[in-house]
């Protein structure tokens, strides 16, 4: 099943009054929304509340969703607003920018060779085998991103929404999404790299 098909299918059934889609829909989105809010708000308790409040708003306004195909971007838009209400921080607060230079690795000359300043990533486990230490390092790295970058990385990489869906939710162009995503990934990569160099997050 391709990305998002299950969500769209469940939304269509719910919207046609098929109540057998209710529980699978709730379970699926409760998990997605929990992880989304946890990484966005940073508090476990808040994340559970955000998931519940978002789902409540979803069911209260399901009749306003005209296109079930857009269910994912619609729900994450609601979740994003609920999250911000919790944080009592304006979405429009000025944000720090990440410049490419800040997050690019540097080179050093080693005799005749040009070497990259990079940790040894081969010691890190595959994504499927992430240990809890690495997971926490990653959560901290994502959490420390300025919001305009974190929100893009969360939607594109963590929730695996498309560039178009993400642009739709955040109300910016797809080019802006691509630029921010790249800087966000480079910043997270850099944090993991630093962690590897100093402490060693490998198992």
């Amino acid at each position: 099943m391709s990305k998002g098909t299950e969500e769209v299918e469940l939304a269509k059934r719910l919207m046609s009054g098929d109540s057998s889609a209710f529980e699978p829909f709730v379970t699926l989105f409760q998990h997605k929304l929990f992880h989304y809010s946890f990484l966005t708000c940073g508090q476990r308790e808040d994340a559970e509340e955000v998931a519940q409040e978002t789902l409540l708003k979803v069911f209260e306004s399901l009749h306003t969703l005209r296109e079930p195909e857009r269910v994912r971007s619609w729900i994450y838009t609601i979740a994003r607003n609920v999250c911000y209400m919790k944080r009592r921080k304006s979405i429009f607060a000025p944000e720090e920018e990440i410049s490419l230079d800040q997050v690019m690795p540097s080179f050093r000359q080693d005799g005749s060779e040009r070497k990259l300043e990079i940790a040894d990533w081969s010691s890190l486990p595959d994504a499927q085998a992430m240990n809890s230490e690495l997971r926490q390092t990653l959560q901290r790295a994502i959490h420390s991103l300025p919001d305009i970058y974190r929100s893009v990385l969360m939607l594109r990489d963590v929730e695996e929404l498309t560039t178009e869906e993400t642009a739709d939710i955040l109300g910016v162009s797809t080019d802006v999404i691509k630029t921010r995503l790249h800087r966000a990934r480079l910043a997270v990569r850099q944090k993991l790299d630093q962690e590897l160099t100093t402490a060693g997050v490998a198992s």
Partner: protein
Amino acid sequence: MTKLECKQIFAMLSEYLDRELPADLCQTIDAHIASCPPCVEFVKSLEKTVAYCRGAGTSSDGPHPLSAANLEELRQAYERSAPVLIKNRPAAS
């Protein structure tokens, strides 16, 4: 196309990994990376970062199951919307 420098490649790597670049540019990058160990290393570290982020949303440490009261609250909200939904449903063609 002129020969690309490592840093120029680094600047395009997300689009490269996401297959959002034009084919000719992709080939130029492939050709550079094939003979550039620093780029290989860097690409691997960025790929791994993206793979980790994809895994960050599905940890075993999920939410507590919804309480009966929370589930009931949601069900009632759905049931209140359902009549409007059914009324708005386009006639089957």
